[in-house]
C-alpha cells in the first residue's frame, strides 16, 4: 500500500483531535475513580443522560442555554444518587460500588429506552457551528474545533480547581489520608458529593458535545464506557495528566489503525492497554492509591 507522507500526517493530526474526543469521555470517569475511589460503571449512563437532556431542552430553550443547563441538570441527578446511594459504599469493598453502579447503568439505559424508544433521536449540529475548515485534502468541521476548545477548557479548569483552590487541596489530602483531614475538623462528605457531581457533569458535557456526531440512542453510554475505562487504565489511576496523555495516545493509535487496518481499529485500544499493563501495571503515570492496597 502506498504510504503517502502527507496522508499519514493528516491521519496523525486527526488522531490527536480524536484524542480530545476520548479525553472528554474519560475525564469525568478518571476524577471519580482517582479522587472518589468509586468505580463508576454508570459513567456511560450519565453521558447518555447529558445527550438526552440536550435533545429535550434545546427544543424549548435553544441550543446554547441547553448546552449550559444540561450538564448542570445531570449533575443534580448525580448529587441525588450520591447522597442517597453511592456514599454508602465509600468505606466498603470496592466491588459493592462497582455492582451498584453497574445496576444503575442498566436501569438508566432501559429507562431511556422505555421513555424515548430505541431509535436514534434526530439531533444536528447547530447552524452557527456548521461548516468546515478545508486545507488541501484535510477537512475538519468547525464544530469539532469547538469541541476541541471546550475539551481543553474543561481540562484547564479542572486542573486549576484541583491544584489552585482550597477545595482541590482538601480533595487531594483526603485521598492520601482521610482520617487526618477529618481530624482537622473538615468534613469530607460534601467534598465527596462535589467530586461525584463534577465527574458526572463532565460525562454529561461529553454527551452534549458528541450528541450530533455519534447519535442519541439509549445504548450510547455502553458504547463509550469501555473506551473511557481503557483510557483511564492506560493513563494510570490517580494521575490527571496520565488521562490526557493516554487519551491522545489512544486517539492517534486508533486513527492510524483505522487507516492501515480498519477491522482492528476498535480492538487497537485493548491491544495498547494490554501492552501498557504488561510493561507498567500502574499505567503510564499512575500513582499507587493506598485504598486499593
Amino acid at each position, binding site marked *: 500500500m502506498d504510504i503517502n507522507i502527507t496522508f499519514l500526517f493528516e491521519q496523525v493530526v486527526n488522531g490527536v483531535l480524536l484524542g480530545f474526543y476520548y479525553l472528554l469521555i474519560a475525564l469525568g470517569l478518571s476524577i471519580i475513580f482517582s479522587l472518589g475511589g468509586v468505580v463508576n460503571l454508570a459513567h456511560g449512563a450519565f453521558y447518555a443522560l447529558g445527550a438526552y437532556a440536550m435533545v429535550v431542552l434545546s427544543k424549548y430553550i435553544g441550543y446554547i442555554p441547553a448546552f449550559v443547563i444540561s450538564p448542570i441538570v445531570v449533575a443534580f441527578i448525580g448529587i441525588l444518587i450520591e447522597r442517597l446511594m453511592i456514599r454508602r459504599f465509600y468505606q466498603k469493598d470496592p466491588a459493592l460500588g462497582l455492582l451498584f453502579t453497574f445496576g444503575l447503568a442498566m436501569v438508566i439505559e432501559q429507562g431511556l429506552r422505555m421513555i424515548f424508544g430505541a*431509535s436514534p433521536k434526530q439531533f444536528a449540529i447547530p447552524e452557527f457551528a456548521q461548516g468546515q475548515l478545508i486545507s488541501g485534502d484535510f477537512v475538519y468541521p468547525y*464544530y469539532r474545533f469547538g469541541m476541541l476548545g471546550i475539551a481543553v477548557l474543561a481540562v484547564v479548569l479542572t486542573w486549576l480547581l484541583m491544584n489552585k483552590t482550597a477545595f482541590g487541596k482538601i480533595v487531594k489530602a483526603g485521598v492520601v489520608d482521610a482520617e487526618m483531614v477529618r481530624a482537622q475538623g473538615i468534613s469530607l462528605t460534601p467534598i465527596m458529593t462535589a467530586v461525584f457531581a463534577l465527574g458526572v457533569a463532565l460525562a454529561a458535557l461529553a454527551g452534549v458535545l458528541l450528541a*450530533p456526531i455519534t447519535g442519541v440512542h439509549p445504548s450510547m453510554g455502553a*458504547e463509550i464506557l469501555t473506551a473511557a475505562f481503557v483510557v483511564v487504565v492506560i493513563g494510570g489511576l490517580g494521575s490527571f495528566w496520565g488521562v490526557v496523555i493516554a487519551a491522545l495516545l489512544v486517539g492517534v493509535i486508533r486513527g492510524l489503525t483505522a487507516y492501515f487496518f480498519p*477491522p482492528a*481499529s476498535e480492538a487497537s485500544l485493548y491491544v495498547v492497554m494490554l501492552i501498557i499493563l504488561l510493561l507498567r501495571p500502574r499505567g503510564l503515570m499512575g500513582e499507587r492509591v493506598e485504598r486499593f492496597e
Partner: protein
Amino acid sequence: MKQKENMSAQALEVGAGVTSEKRRQVITGTIASGLAMAMPSLVLGQANNPIKIGHLTPRTGFLGPMGEYAVMGATLAVEEINAAGGVNGRKFELISEDSVNPQTASTKAQRMVERDKVNFFVGEISSASGLAIAQVATRAKTLFFQTGCNSDALRGKDCSRYMFHMEANNTMYVRTVGRELMRKKMVKGKRWMAFTADYAFGHDLFEKTKKFMDENGGIFVSNDLIPTDAMEFSPMLLKIRQQKPDLVMSNLAGNSTTNFMKQYNEFKIPIPLAGADLNAVSIWGAGEAGFSGTWPIIWTHQVKAPSAQKFTDTFMKRFGVPADNQGVADYLAIKIIAKAMQATNSDDAEKIIPYLESGVKFDVLRSREGYFRPWDHQLLFEMYTVQPAKGATKWDNFVTSAPIPGPNESLEVLAPSQMENACNFSS
C-alpha cells in the same frame, strides 16, 4: 306404534316395563355425549389452544432500533387477527423476546420449542442470528418466517425447507440500487470505495456488490472492514477525501449507517454516496441535514398502493409513528401465516409448505401482489429507491421512487437465479 310393540316385547322378555325406554334414552344420550367430547377442538373453538408465535428480534445493540419496529408490526398483526376472531377458531399469542446475538438467539429459540411449544417462528434481523434460529427451527420441524436477514447465503447454501424469507436478499438490494446508479451513469468505468460491516451480512453484501461491479464494468479501489461497534468515522472520511473515488458504497448496518451518513455530511464529502441496506429508522435518525445518497429499500410509508396507505394510517394511529420497512415485514409474516392456516385448515408445517410453494399470491401492501419462489422460499415483491428530499418534515426527509421492477417486468429479475445461489432443501 312399533316402538310400543318392541317395548312390550322387551318388557315381556326383560320384565323391566316402561323403564326400557328410559334405559335406551340414557344409552343414546351417553353415546351422543361421548361422541361430542371426542370431536376435535377446532370445531368447538376452544380459547385455551392459541397459536403461539415465537418472535425473536434484536431489541438491544446496533440493530435495536429496527427490532422496535419489528415488535410493533408483529403486535399490530396479532391484534388485528384476534380482533377478527382468530384463525380456525384459535387466537394468536405473540411471545416476543430480544435475540441479542446468535448464541442467545439459538438458546431462546430452543427454549421456545421445548418450553413454550411455539407453532411458528417469526422475526430476526441479523443474518448471523437468523442462521442460528433456522438451525433450531429445522431440527424442530417448525416453520420460521425470517423478516430482516439479508444475506444471500440464507437462501442459498444455508437454506432450509422450513425457512421462508420475507426480507429481500443482498442481490435484490444490489440490483435495485444498481439499476438507479447505472441510470445515473455512475457504474461503468468508475472507481468505488466500500466500507463494509465486519460480520456475515457485510461480507455477503460486499461479495454481491463486487459481482455487480464486475458484471457492469466498474471497479472497487478499496474495501475497508468496519467493526460493528465503530461509531466515529473521521479516519475513514479523511481517507475518502485523500483517495477521491467516484462513489462511496456503504455496506454498513443499523446505527453504523446512521452515524456514517451524519458524519459524511458533517465532513462535507463532495463524493456521491450509495448503499445497499437501509432502514427508515436510519433515515429518520440522520435527520434532514444528515441523509444523503442513493439507497434501495423494500418499503416505505410513502408507497402509494391503497392497502399500503391504509396500513400506514392504522400503524400511525396505533403507535404514533409511521410504519417502516421492518414493521411491514413482521406484520406481513404473521398475516401470511394466518392466511396459510386458513387455506389449509391446519397449523401443520407439512401442509403449509406446499401451499406457500404453490405460487399463491398475497397482498404485500404494494401495487403488485407478492409470492414465494418455490425453490428457495424467497418472497418476491416490488422494491424502491430513496433519496433525500428538500424542505422536509420530520418523517418525510426522503422521497420514494416508483416500484422496481416496473409493471411489465417479472418480479424475478432482481433475485439471484438458481445457478447464482443454489439451494438444496434435502441437504
